[in-house]
């Protein structure tokens, strides 16, 4: 190691060492001369003898230089310089090589950085690899009551247990400033200690601040939020603020890199879990209701409300599967309690068979991350295809260039250049292009990354850093592989080149190489066909979604979310509040109808209840179905369509028989028909007077996502099922743009404490819901377009090279009477043959992709046929210019040049 270090040091000062050697040799020669003179020789003779004794100084200098340098590195360096010179001499070739590689590598780097930031970043806590999420079989978080989590802290003795609620919106007010929304999260007091998380200012709350029924009115702030609000973390500590109208004090600020328990979405404020009833945070929970007693509104005391996600530390050497029995033991009392009141045998069975897993979660669990993982698979597949395609194209280009230089290579080999050295030149040239492409990617990623982040990782609060050692190492690896991939076939051909045959101007084994080149072009076309099929499929699917009736009015309905509970309103306030809001909205010019619902359409929020169907011919007895509570005007405001029966009316009051309107999908699923008016559904196992009669069947609507299967859901009238309605829909008669701001202002003036989210038309919510799909489709389209373009160039380059090699033969054929059209058709036929092979190969690849289940929609035969036609067309376009050139061969000119 030391020797290597010293050699590197000497290599850096090799010029100084050379001067030192010269001085030492001069001194040595002088001393020897003096020695011989002292023995009686005359000066000239003494000098001659001294030189003889010193030996051949040129050889000495060479040996010294070799020792003072790094010969292997210098040799590669020289080859690199030569490669750069060669590339500079052919700028067109160099630009296309570097440009194409740069493009492919930019896409690769973008995906690498995105994936690294979204998927691999661990929570900034010590030994993050120990963190495991208590989850279901699919890896989704399981929810627990506080009592179960506290029991788990006893039953799991191997490491810490950390419980926290889902992040939610809270209303924050500072001093006299208007109320604003922020994100908040309830956390058990000992969770911070379990994470071993530090603090940048103040302190974190602990288990003493989180005593049930006596929780301290404190909060811990996110670093970025504290800086934005108060200027610095230190300034934030000790500040008082109103959260959901309750006074709290900020006691500490978290480290900058800690965003929240899921590692991706920033949470602004964290509160002790014991403040749940005080802050009226009642979302993200699974409640079991029963007749024996009402649930305690303080969830901390209620074992029938499951609302806490759990991270456990599993130390190294301890099997994660040991968490399962510990959780089962901890959850057993709560399950027994629920089982004792559960009448449905199906539900009892499901609850008894419930089990848990510990899923490694060094970065916490995030739904955003899961959604990204799905998109990233497609992105990675697209980018890999693009890279393979680029390499195939460049390999063909490099091969054509190497074949064109066969005479030069023959000369080199004849002059004694080693075969490895000759091959190495081709390799180094491709590697230089790879390095330049990587540099281009490092520049390009600055423009592409924000775009990609916006399209594929929207909502995630991650700082994407392209300059991480891991990412750059991977980029270097990919660039190296690409370079090698481009040069392998040319290098292989060079290794077999016979100098004498090359000097004669014949290609020798080049015919085989040419066939390989054409094979590469066919592979390119096949990949292009596959990518085109994927792009068409994605685009077609989005078109289908957009052209379908989504079941609601998109253009003239403005919607917004708000939270009445966090604004401090109680159940008694609700009727008057909604009446005030409704009359305020109706006073705005252009507003036609105003409706409220509990969760809303495309709002990222939903409610579900276990529902029992009554009567004969029931296909599904009990299942969890999506439920929505609406006021009487809501269906009309959002434009839901009625198929049978009626909507809710003013007569559906608290005292009248309970009613429901079900979706067609729900009716079909439960009864196998939509003729369900008069049928009954209920929440209990046994039929009761509380059951709802179905009075209407509505058309299916995409309530949760623009791209989803038909939703099995039903609506309930708000007067019969009192609940906070947190979604307002306003039907307008004119351009929503003109009404939007006035509406927001009107609500602000009448209810300043109520914070509304952004006002969006349902069409805008559809767009947002399809954003990632559209981005994927667009990207697939761009990649497919590039692939087809590369296919055109590939075919063009390959045939042009062939025409150049066959110039003499073509000239002779013209001289013998062949017409230019005939020759042109011959070359075009070659192109068509390549196109045919490419299209067939593409069909095979599509079949593989389909069977592999990666992109199932690529199976549509029309899409496949169009994609194959595109590949074939690309080959014909690519063949056109070489075909024209073949037709223009002048036999007289050719004979003259001979």
């Amino acid at each position: 190691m030391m020797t290597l270090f010293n050699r590197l040091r000497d290599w850096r000062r090799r010029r100084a060492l050379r001067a030192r050697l010269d001085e030492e040799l001069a001194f040595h020669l002088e001393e020897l001369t003096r020695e011989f003179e002292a023995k009686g020789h005359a000066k000239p003779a003494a000098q001659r003898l001294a030189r003889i004794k010193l030996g051949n100084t040129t050889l000495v200098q060479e040996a010294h230089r070799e020792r003072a340098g790094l010969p292997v590195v210098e040799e590669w360096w020289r080859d690199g310089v030569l490669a750069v010179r060669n590339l500079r001499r052919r700028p067109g070739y160099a630009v296309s090589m570097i440009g194409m590689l740069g493009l492919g590598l930019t896409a690769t780097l973008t995906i690498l950085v995105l994936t690294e930031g979204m998927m691999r970043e661990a929570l900034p806590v010590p030994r993050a690899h120990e963190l495991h999420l208590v989850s279901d079989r699919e890896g989704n978080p399981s929810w627990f009551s506080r009592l179960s989590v506290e029991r788990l802290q006893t039953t799991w003795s191997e490491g810490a247990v950390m419980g926290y609620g889902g992040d939610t919106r809270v209303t924050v007010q500072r001093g006299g400033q208007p109320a604003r929304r922020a994100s908040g999260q309830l956390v058990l007091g000992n969770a911070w200690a379990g994470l071993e998380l530090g603090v940048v200012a103040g302190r974190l709350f602990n288990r003493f601040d989180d005593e049930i029924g006596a929780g301290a009115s404190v909060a811990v702030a996110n670093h970025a939020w504290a800086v934005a609000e108060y200027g610095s973390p230190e300034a934030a500590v000790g500040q008082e603020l109103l959260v959901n109208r309750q006074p709290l004090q900020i006691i500490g600020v978290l480290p900058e890199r800690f965003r929240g328990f899921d590692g991706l979405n920033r949470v602004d404020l964290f509160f002790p879990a014991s403040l749940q009833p005080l802050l009226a945070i009642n979302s993200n929970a699974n409640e079991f209701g029963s007749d024996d007693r009402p649930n305690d509104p303080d969830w901390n005391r209620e074992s029938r409300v499951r609302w806490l996600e759990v991270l456990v530390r599993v130390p190294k050497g301890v099997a994660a599967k040991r968490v399962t029995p510990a959780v089962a033991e901890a959850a057993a009392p709560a399950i027994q309690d629920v089982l004792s009141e559960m009448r449905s045998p199906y539900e009892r069975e499901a609850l008894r068979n419930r089990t848990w897993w510990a899923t490694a979660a060094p970065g916490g669990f995030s739904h955003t991350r899961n959604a990204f993982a799905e998109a990233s698979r497609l992105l990675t597949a697209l980018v890999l295809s693009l890279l393979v395609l680029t390499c195939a194209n460049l390999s063909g280009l490099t091969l054509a260039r190497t074949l064109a230089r066969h005479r030069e290579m023959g000369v080199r080999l004849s002059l004694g250049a080693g075969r490895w050295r000759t091959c190495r030149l081709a390799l180094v040239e491709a590697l230089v292009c790879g390095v330049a492409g990587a540099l281009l990617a490092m520049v390009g990623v600055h423009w592409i990354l924000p775009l990609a982040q916006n399209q594929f990782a929207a909502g995630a609060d991650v700082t994407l850093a392209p300059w991480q050692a891991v990412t750059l190492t991977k980029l270097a690896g990919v660039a190296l592989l690409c370079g090698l991939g481009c040069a392998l076939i040319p290098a292989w051909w060079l290794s077999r080149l016979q100098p004498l045959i090359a000097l004669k101007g014949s290609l020798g084994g080049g015919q085989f190489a040419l066939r390989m080149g054409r094979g590469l072009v066919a592979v390119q076309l096949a990949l292009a066909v596959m990518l085109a099929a994927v792009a068409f499929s994605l685009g077609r699917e989005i078109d289908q979604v957009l052209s379908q009736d989504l079941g609601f009015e998109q253009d003239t309905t403005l919607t917004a979310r708000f939270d009445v509970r966090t604004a401090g309103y109680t159940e008694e306030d609700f009727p008057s509040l909604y009446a005030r809001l409704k009359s305020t909205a109706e006073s705005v010019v252009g507003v036609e109808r105003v409706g409220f619902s509990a969760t809303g359409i495309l709002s990222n929020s939903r409610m579900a209840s276990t529902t029992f169907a009554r009567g004969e011919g029931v296909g599904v007895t009990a299942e969890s179905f999506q439920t929505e509570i609406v006021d009487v005007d809501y269906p009309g405001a959002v434009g839901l369509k009625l198929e049978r029966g009626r909507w809710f009316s003013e007569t559906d009051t608290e005292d009248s028989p309970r009613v429901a309107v079900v979706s067609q999908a729900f009716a079909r699923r439960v009864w196998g028909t939509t003729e369900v008016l008069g049928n009954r559904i209920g929440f209990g196992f046994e039929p009761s007077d509380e059951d709802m009669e179905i009075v209407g069947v509505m058309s299916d609507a995409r309530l949760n996502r623009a791209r989803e299967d038909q939703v099995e859901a039903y609506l309930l009238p708000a007067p019969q099922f009192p609940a906070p309605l947190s979604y307002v829909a306003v039907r307008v008669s004119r351009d929503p743009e003109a009404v939007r701001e006035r509406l927001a202002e009107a609500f602000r003036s009448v209810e300043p404490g109520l914070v509304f989210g952004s006002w969006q038309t349902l069409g805008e919510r559809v767009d947002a819901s399809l954003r990632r799909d559209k981005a994927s489709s667009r990207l697939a389209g761009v990649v497919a377009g590039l692939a087809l373009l590369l296919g055109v160039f590939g075919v063009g380059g390959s045939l042009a090279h062939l025409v150049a090699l066959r110039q003499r033969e073509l000239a002779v054929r013209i001289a013998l009477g062949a017409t230019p059209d005939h020759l042109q058709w011959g070359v075009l036929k070659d192109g068509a043959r390549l196109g045919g092979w490419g299209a067939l190969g593409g069909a095979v690849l599509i079949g593989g992709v389909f069977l592999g289940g990666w992109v199932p929609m690529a199976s549509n035969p029309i899409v496949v046929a169009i994609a194959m036609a595109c590949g074939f067309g690309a080959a014909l376009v690519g063949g056109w210019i070489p075909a024209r050139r073949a037709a223009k061969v002048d036999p007289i000119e050719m004979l003259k040049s001979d």
Partner: protein
Amino acid sequence: MSETEDRLEVLQGTLDLLVLKTLAGMGSLHGYGIARRIEQVSGDLLALNQGTLYPALLRLEQQGWISSDWGVSENNRRARFYKLTRKGAKRLTVEVDRWQRMSAAVNAIIAEPSRGGAR
């Protein structure tokens, strides 16, 4: 011409040992001094192509066995002086031991009486 007659070429691989040993005995020496000393100690029996000393000195320096610095020779000329490092002293022990085992083995083979001539 008589100066080089009957002299022995330095065996390949032994130059390091000779240089290390010379420096161990003489302390700090320049290249000419090392070459001169080797020839003197060997009774002028070893013929050293003196230029080859310099790449060897650089190699030993890179291995950390010797170190060098500029100094002034007895003739008041600037010269590069080499000296043994602690690591070099340890290496010398290894080299000497190896040489002794090697020469003993060669001597043993030579000393064995011939048992018959070629047929």
